[in-house]
């Protein structure tokens, strides 16, 4: 069974099905945030439905772009940088 599940995620044949499932999951997760009770909200953004989705996406993009920018402007060096 494990092999079948793993194969589903790896095999290029199932790419279409995978993408479809991914989009459905995104919609379901985003929509469900509109139907939950917000008793524990402390800050204003906790009260906005879909905040998690928005913040997660922005964080991800920001992390990738900022890190790669810093990496290509000094942090990343050739692999033999420390070799004598």
């Amino acid at each position, binding site marked *: 069974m*494990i*092999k079948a*599940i*793993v*194969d589903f*995620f*790896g095999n290029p044949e199932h790419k279409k099905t995978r993408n479809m499932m*991914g989009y459905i*999951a*995104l919609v379901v*997760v*985003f929509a*469900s*945030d509109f139907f*939950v*009770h*917000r*008793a*524990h*909200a*402390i*800050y204003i953004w*906790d009260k906005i439905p*879909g*905040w*998690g*989705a*928005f*913040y*997660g*996406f922005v*964080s*991800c*993009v*920001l*992390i*990738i*772009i*900022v*890190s*790669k920018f*810093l*990496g290509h402007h*000094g*942090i*990343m*060096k*050739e*692999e033999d*940088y*420390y070799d004598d």
Partner: protein
Amino acid sequence: MIDWFHPSILFIFGACLIPFLRGRVQQVYLLLIPALAIAAVFFMSQGSFWTYSFLGNPLIFGKVDKLSVVFAWVFTIMSFIGMVYALHVKDSGQHVAAFLYVGGSLGVTFAGDYFTLFIFWELMAFASAYLIFARREKKAIESAYRYILVHIFGGVCLLGGIILHYANTKSLAFGPLPQDGSLSFYLILTGFILNAGVPPLHAWLTDSYPEATITGSVFMCSFTTKTAVYVLVRAFPGTELLVYMGTVMALYGVVYAVLENDCRRLLAYHIVSQVGYMVAGVGIGTDLSLNGSVSHAFAHILYKSLLFMGAGAVIQMTGKRKLTELGGLYKTMPITLVLYMIGGFAISAFPLFSGFVTKSMVVSGAAHDHRPLIALLLTMASAGTFLHTGLKLPYYMFFAKDSGIRAKEPPTNMLVAMGLAAFMCIAIGVLPEQLYRLLPFPVHFEPYTGDHVTSALGILMFTGLGFFMLLKKLDPEPTVSVDTDWVYRKGSRIFMWFANKPLAGGDGYISNIYNTWFTKYTLKISYFLARVFDVRIIDGLVNGVAAFFIKSAKVIRVSESGLVRNYAFTMLLGTVLIITYYLFAY
């Protein structure tokens, strides 16, 4: 009936027997000792045990309260899992080092005074260094030397702080330090945060963990940083500085993880990131956030070791460690992949996995303590965690382009160890109450509320969307990242150049001047003294005295005729002269 038994005794003295055992017997023994240690923790009662007087100060080996017990639980459980993973290793030295290392951690956990703590602290540093040396490759050995030097520096800071603390307070008791900003406060803090891997003192971690042996790195990722979290919770709760350090740490690790190509180094940067949550939780210092730090350390040890075991299994079976050289392993290593992914979901804080019920406690702690920015930044870091550990690393290791490597699944014992850790990750996520009951402070926390679950899933799923949209940008690059270890890896070369050129050159110049001006004249003066003063005056004086006596003797010898009448005449003459002198003088 003994009322308390120190589990370190089992490990430290138990380690001595390992080299004498072989094969199956050794394997049973390696599992028996951690199992006995778990039993010792299970039957443990709270209080102070094994107190000895040393130079008028009490040494407390067994300070047992809820805080030390919860760490003892996870350390002993982890030692068992780590030993299962390492069962196939024939190098007894590694097992001995691992045992001493675990014994050191448990010794720190139960230490009731700073002196005992320091002894076990150093034992940990030296025992763990062997796990890096044991890979016996040039890079590993170099890294191990750096590791040990950095830890000696940290140990010296800690010891200096302890001595100053003792001089000020006349007490060695290990407990919350007064927030007085004294030198001893900062020295002890430096010693502790160095082991916790707080930037800029973290580079030893990301430098050495990927260089350690495959089984050794599983132990290393579990004990050093989490022991440091334990001592921070004990000594520095509510230290404001730690809030900012922890938050910076959480994001720092994430940024470097984007750039990293070595799979275990990527995971090591996520240790820095995850320990950031714990350090921030200690800094916030409320009951909720301290519980968060402790529970997150507990969960972290299990999922991070699982991730290291997964990456280690891949390295062991493929012989490759760079993401640029791996890919397509899902076909032949599906079980490793699934077990790794459980660790990935746990660290990313997916609902029903351990990270969800512990990390959220720290973030809630920040929010309840009116620190919105800290809460937001920590949440951002958790998006980065999923991005790398849950998506990037497994994607490039197991999927992506097919590297053509057809590696088999690792040995059964490695899979069993990963299975045990995976089981714990899910068990904690599904039944958090069991873990919460062990926590040191009585706080009610309910992780599974509707809005918490949906917003967490929103963050994670849309991080996933961002990942696949920017996939091209994330392709790993065959580079190394410059970190603060530059200071002693490259910076030391500047120091050596400075020592060689200006310093050694200047030294030669001064030597020349010295030779020309001082040595020459000193020699001339000593020549003068030797030739003139010594020969003419000192020797001359001695020779002169001798010559005088020889000459006198020649004169006197004339009068020595040997005739009694001459002598009698001389004596008579002398007597007459003396009497005449006295007669005329008075």
